[in-house]
């Protein structure tokens, strides 16, 4: 189990919005320790029994907080993230999608500087099944167990986890790094944590075309990981996506296709599934 447990004390930023309220309910039901919420201008209200504050500073003056889940709408998300970081919250889950890319780049740099970590944006969150959920995943498909899952994709993760659970294979922690071009935490960071986590016996990596995150992860797996890794990569038949001009091509150096990713992963000794629903079966053969 990595990053979150039943002891993690959670703040929800944007708790009074439609999504914030709905998922606060579901997280509480799952057993997540949500201690406070923040929505500017709504200080003093209660959401499902959770006290709401105007600012992170005020929430922290009343509660101890280990992590924050952010549902704040995209135009204001950078502010919320920086507010949390400036108030020394170490771990953030940025659910919000469609945050401007320049904002994300700044958020990432600020987190680096101040020593905080965020996952996302555009992540379904993180769940340590049976212990705590910081996010929006449909929790019934998860099952506590011994496999760590890290993914760039939300719903595809559910598909894969569903196949694992159906094969009786539970998860230590399932984490979505987020589907945006720039994310706060990348595959390698998470693989490193799973490698070190004593409960985790194998890891599932769910990738997709675009960028070079999977290729970079492959090198890490090859050089640094002892635990078995199973992967699934979406987009083998997808139309070529938006081409980022010459500049993008120069940076990526021609990698980023599903073939390139699958090749790199296989070279690193990873079992690559052809269909998402195969992951459960493959794992059951390995562990």
């Amino acid at each position, binding site marked *: 189990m990595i990053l979150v447990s039943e002891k993690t004390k959670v703040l929800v930023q944007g708790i009074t919005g439609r*999504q914030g309220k709905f*998922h606060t309910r579901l997280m509480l039901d799952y057993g997540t320790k949500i201690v406070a919420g923040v929505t500017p201008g709504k200080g003093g209200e209660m959401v499902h029994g959770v006290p709401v504050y105007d600012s992170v500073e005020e929430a922290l003056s009343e509660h101890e907080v280990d992590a924050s889940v952010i549902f704040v709408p*995209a*135009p204001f998300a950078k502010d919320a993230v920086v507010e949390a970081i400036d108030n020394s919250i170490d771990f953030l889950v940025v659910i919000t999608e*469609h945050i*401007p*890319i*320049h904002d*994300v*780049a*700044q958020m*990432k*740099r*600020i987190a680096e*500087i101040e020593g905080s970590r965020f996952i996302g944006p555009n992540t*379904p969150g993180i769940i340590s099944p049976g212990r705590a959920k910081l996010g*929006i*995943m*449909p929790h019934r*498909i998860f099952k506590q167990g011994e496999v760590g899952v890290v993914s*760039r*994709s*939300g*719903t*595809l*993760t*559910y*598909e894969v986890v*569903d196949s694992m659970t159906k094969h009786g294979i539970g998860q230590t922690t399932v984490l979505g790094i987020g*589907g945006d*071009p*720039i*994310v706060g935490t990348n595959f390698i960071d998470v693989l490193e944590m799973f490698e070190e986590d004593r409960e985790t016996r194998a890891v599932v990596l769910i990738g*997709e*075309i675009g*960028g*070079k*995150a999977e290729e*970079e992860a492959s090198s890490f797996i090859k050089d640094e990981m002892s635990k078995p890794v199973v992967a*699934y990569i*979406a*987009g*083998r*038949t*997808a*139309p070529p996506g*938006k*081409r*980022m*001009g*010459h*500049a*993008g*091509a*120069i*940076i990526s*150096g021609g990698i980023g296709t599903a073939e390139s990713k699958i090749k790199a992963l296989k070279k690193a000794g990873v079992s690559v599934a*052809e*269909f*998402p629903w195969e992951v459960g079966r493959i794992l059951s053969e390995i562990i």
Partner: protein
Amino acid sequence: MKLHEYQAKEIFAREGIPVPMGRIARNPREAFEISREIGSEVVLKAQVLVGGRGKAGGILFSSLEEVEEKSRKIFSTEIKGERPELILVEERLNSVKEFYLGITFDRSRGRPVVMTSSEGGVEIEEVARRSPEKITWVEVDPLKGIYPYMIRKLSRPFPKEVRKEAHEIIAKLYEIFVKYDAELAEINPLIYDGKKLVAADAVLNINDDSLFRQNFKREEEGIEGIASREGFSYVTLDGEIAIIGNGAGLTMATLDAVEMEGGKAANFLDIGGGVPPEGMKKALEIVYMNEKAKLVLVNVFGGINRCDEIAQGIRMFFEERGGKLDKPLVVRLTGTNEEEGRRILEEIGIEVYKDLREAVKSAVRRVKNDTSL
């Protein structure tokens, strides 16, 4: 959002980057008028958003005499499926040497990267692959911004006589990159005409997620335009099975599975998250427009989307069509509020698969077997 070359050049000119003299023509007559004003050889450039327009005949040099004829030709040329509505008519530059200047994000590092090269032109990617030392590049800390010492390094490939101008153009392009929330800003080629530097081409892609604070109107037309206004991600393909999924990864995986099972996708449509019933109905309307499609496969794994709301959308669409669909609908629905969703669809006689594999197999089988489709 990709801007047209002429739009990008308008911005460049406004921000102080030199561009060729020129204007937009909507028809051959206008092209002739503009050429007469310019008073020298011109270049006619089709304004399309796809790459490779040069090879496709979208860029022609012309004397004044031939302008009408040549622009007529361009207007009637289809370039990778796009027919140009506008031609940019510009003075023909005297190119002594062509340079490259581009800015985009390095995704893994999360930082802007600025690149220059003395080997500008269409072969730049080839140059980057074969002789990476010919690309000068600098990574920028998004908090600190670009510094003169970085720009001096980037200016080094340029001839001494215009290094100061190069410095200014790089600084300004970086400013534009930030100010306009760009994902990509590119000048290729940046032409040295023996005296000065001129941006012969201009690429500026605005980050879609930043459009709420930028002043650009989407121009996309057809199905893509409708989809994008709904917030969907949509691409037309040439197969027979129309696909609607939620989440890019899952939708791609659905396409992959369809093809692995022997089918072919007619489109990619990702509805994204938190879609209300009306949105789901709209998504169906969009894929039903595609005449090539013979069957529609919906694959939703409810998370932030709720299965009951998705089912309501399907029912609304079903009822709008009077309960008669001209293409069969295969639905896979699971996740949040699954039971309620299933109940809604079963009420109107639509079978719901719980398992993706079965849904895919069924869709492919039906398209293959039923020749009446």
